[in-house]
């Protein structure tokens, strides 16, 4: 938590646009983008901001002059960092996600099921989502080790940011009742408590805080069960998938865990939105789960109408999501040294009528709406 706060403090300084571009001769392929509004990823934005990209990385971002001789893309709209989702179950092929041989899979690497050419990956990219966390099946209690991958740039194998990220644990009804042990919440709790106590392999890293947990939960009582199970163990991580997490915010905050909000679309209940608003207006970092890429920003827009804090909502798509992945020093912000993952929007990203016109991943133009629409 402290680290997050320090990062936020540092980011505030950034937002002033005091950065000076590095004086150097531009490389071939370097470019700058000038946007009407430049969202820096930490919730702040700069009008008429410029982001300078060099060799796949961001060299500078803010209010500044464009370095001499550099190609400038004039964008009459908003520009943000690529969006990030720490909960993207559909980005692994359905047939490869559920390893049914045993319910405790501490050493399973989910990255091996990834196929970058999958249509779902392309769809995520075209919606402005450039980094996702790959998830295992919620039908297992320990579903494996997650990975963070980009949605483009798979030329020489998958574009992987972290192939051995969080330990995914499922504490809800779907991991029980699959015709094998454990069939009950009592069995899940008993077994996980024992594994945590023994602390072998990945569990040792969980206890020392070196490996985060990604805990799939559904109901409020799942959250209470999960937070009390790991309380005092040294485990860190995120609680993902609970619609009403905002109603047990004290338990979540006390656990020090982050929240991943499940995907919503039209038809979401007002109670779910009120819960999201409560999370957004608290100090708990949160991010959004990815269902259909086309409705990825839906919940945020509805929660804004409900009174959710706009800054924290904007941060959730970028910096806070990167914090959940432990990649906050590499993605999620437009700052020097960060990956040049950019989305050029037709308007404000929190306006549902806006759409990505171009998406860059590692400084490479990977999606262009005009090209895609012409197909």
């Amino acid at each position, binding site marked *: 938590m402290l680290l997050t706060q320090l990062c936020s403090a540092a980011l505030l300084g950034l937002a002033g646009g005091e950065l000076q571009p590095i004086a150097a001769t531009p490389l071939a392929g370097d470019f700058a983008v000038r946007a009407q509004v430049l969202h820096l990823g930490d919730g702040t934005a700069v009008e008429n901001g410029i982001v300078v990209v060099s060799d796949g990385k961001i060299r500078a971002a803010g209010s500044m002059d464009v370095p001499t001789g550099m190609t400038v893309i004039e964008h009459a709209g908003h520009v943000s960092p690529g969006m990030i989702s720490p909960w993207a179950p559909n980005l692994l092929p359905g047939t490869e996600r559920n390893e049914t041989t045993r319910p405790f899979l501490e050493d399973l690497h989910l990255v091996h099921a990834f196929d970058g050419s999958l249509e779902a990956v392309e769809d995520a990219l075209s919606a402005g989502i450039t980094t996702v966390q790959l998830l295992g099946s919620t039908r297992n209690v320990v579903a494996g080790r997650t990975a963070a991958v980009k949605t483009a740039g798979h030329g020489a194998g998958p574009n992987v940011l972290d192939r051995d990220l969080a330990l995914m644990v499922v504490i809800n009804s779907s991991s029980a009742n699959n015709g094998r042990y454990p069939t009950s*919440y009592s069995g899940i709790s*008993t077994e996980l408590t024992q594994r945590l106590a023994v602390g072998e392999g990945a569990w040792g890293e969980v206890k020392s805080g070196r490996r985060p947990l990604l805990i799939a939960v559904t109901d409020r009582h799942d959250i209470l069960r999960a937070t*009390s199970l790991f*309380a005092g163990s040294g485990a860190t991580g995120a609680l993902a998938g609970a619609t009403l997490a905002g109603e047990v915010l004290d338990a979540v905050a006390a656990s020090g865990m982050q929240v991943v909000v499940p995907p919503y679309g039209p038809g979401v209940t007002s109670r779910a939105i009120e819960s999201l608003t409560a999370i957004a207006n*608290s100090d708990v970092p949160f991010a959004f789960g990815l269902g259909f890429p086309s409705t990825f920003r839906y919940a945020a827009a509805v929660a804004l109408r409900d009174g959710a804090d706009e800054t924290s909502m904007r941060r959730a798509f970028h910096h806070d999501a990167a914090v959940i992945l432990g990649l906050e020093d590499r993605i999620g912000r437009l700052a020097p040294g960060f990956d040049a993952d950019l989305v050029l929007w037709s308007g404000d990203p929190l306006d549902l009528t806006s759409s990505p016109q171009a998406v860059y991943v590692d400084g490479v133009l990977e999606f262009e709406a005009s090209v895609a629409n012409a197909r």
Partner: protein
Amino acid sequence: MISLLATGALAFCLQPTTTSSGQEPEAPQRSWTITADWVYTVSGDAIENGAVTVTDGRISAVGSAAGEGDLHVTAITPGLVDLGARISLGDDAVEQVHESTPAMRITDAWNPYSTRFGRELQSGVTTVLMVQPDRNVIGGLGAAVKTGGPLEERLIADERVVSAVIGSQPSSGNSPAFRRPNGLFNRRPTTRMGVEWVARKAFYDAIAKAEGVIDPEPLEAAGLDVLGRVLNGELPLFVAAEATQDIRTAIFLKEEFGFPHLILDSAAEAWKEPKLLQRSGASVVLPPFAWSGRTGQAGGFMAWNTVELLEELGVTYALSGQGNRDRERRLFLQPAFAVRAGGTPALALAAATLTPAQMIGIDDRVGSIEVGKDADLCFWNGEPTRFTTDVIGVMVGGELAVDPREASAHKLR
């Protein structure tokens, strides 16, 4: 070897909730003086024109009314206690990897947000025993919880009973291992005989483990240690047994292994084996009375004069509404049925309050109106054991859950 018992203390550490707007709700009033035409303390005589004083959620004084209080009702009884309420997460609350799982805790499978707690609360039940559903022969450790009040105060006591089922329920749905693909449900038992065998083997194994004859895997070992606590009298065995032969089987197990505390839950046909029941020293929880006599989960036949007979035999009994959806079959009406069929009013009321609390050892907290106990109270608009009387208000831990001043209170579901 890892001791599961040492690491398995997973009772919820419940946190208070905040409203979604993030504002702290105003703290509810938890201190009161309530006057009544009659205060039924259950532990002592009823007090005419009595008063109960509540301070910070606990009963601080009981006696004659002196002046006007915050509230006046016709009658006050302790909040009702239901050992047979059957509130659980269904199949998610019973570990079916084995037919005997004594170490499994119901508190690990507790949904405090279940609307069924609220339903019980609306009709006067303030404490329930949670046990595993009837899929296993020996389900595991049960816990006593409140049906309302602040979340962090709901758990009264974990590990109050070891739950078990003797009857056809644990064997239904199981299939023999031949001619079927392997799966969880190719398991014993498939008959009542098998149920009895599983229960008896579990206790024999518990003795064998205690004597060092066997050294089972950690999970099983933890379970056998829990059964050891039944054998030495620390925990009662809480057995759902409705039909006569099942009641007999449960009593024979008690006599064979000599464990001191047996509670026969849902014991509809207890009246058919009066002498055996009396000899065994077991206590019973009766399912709700039904016009046809058929009641309980398995449709046992309960005679209307069951309570009269049990009182004659000196058998300790409690009443239950079994979590009925229909208000007409819930616990608050059972004392009236019992009295109508020959029961003593004081014992019948105790059977819905103090007696069940004593059966599972939580009577230091709930079950009667005494100084120092939790302010869990039930408010009535007449004599509690009369048919024409209804529950009009409920208090849990000093908080008004159902306000008797609201005209619609007695219309609640």
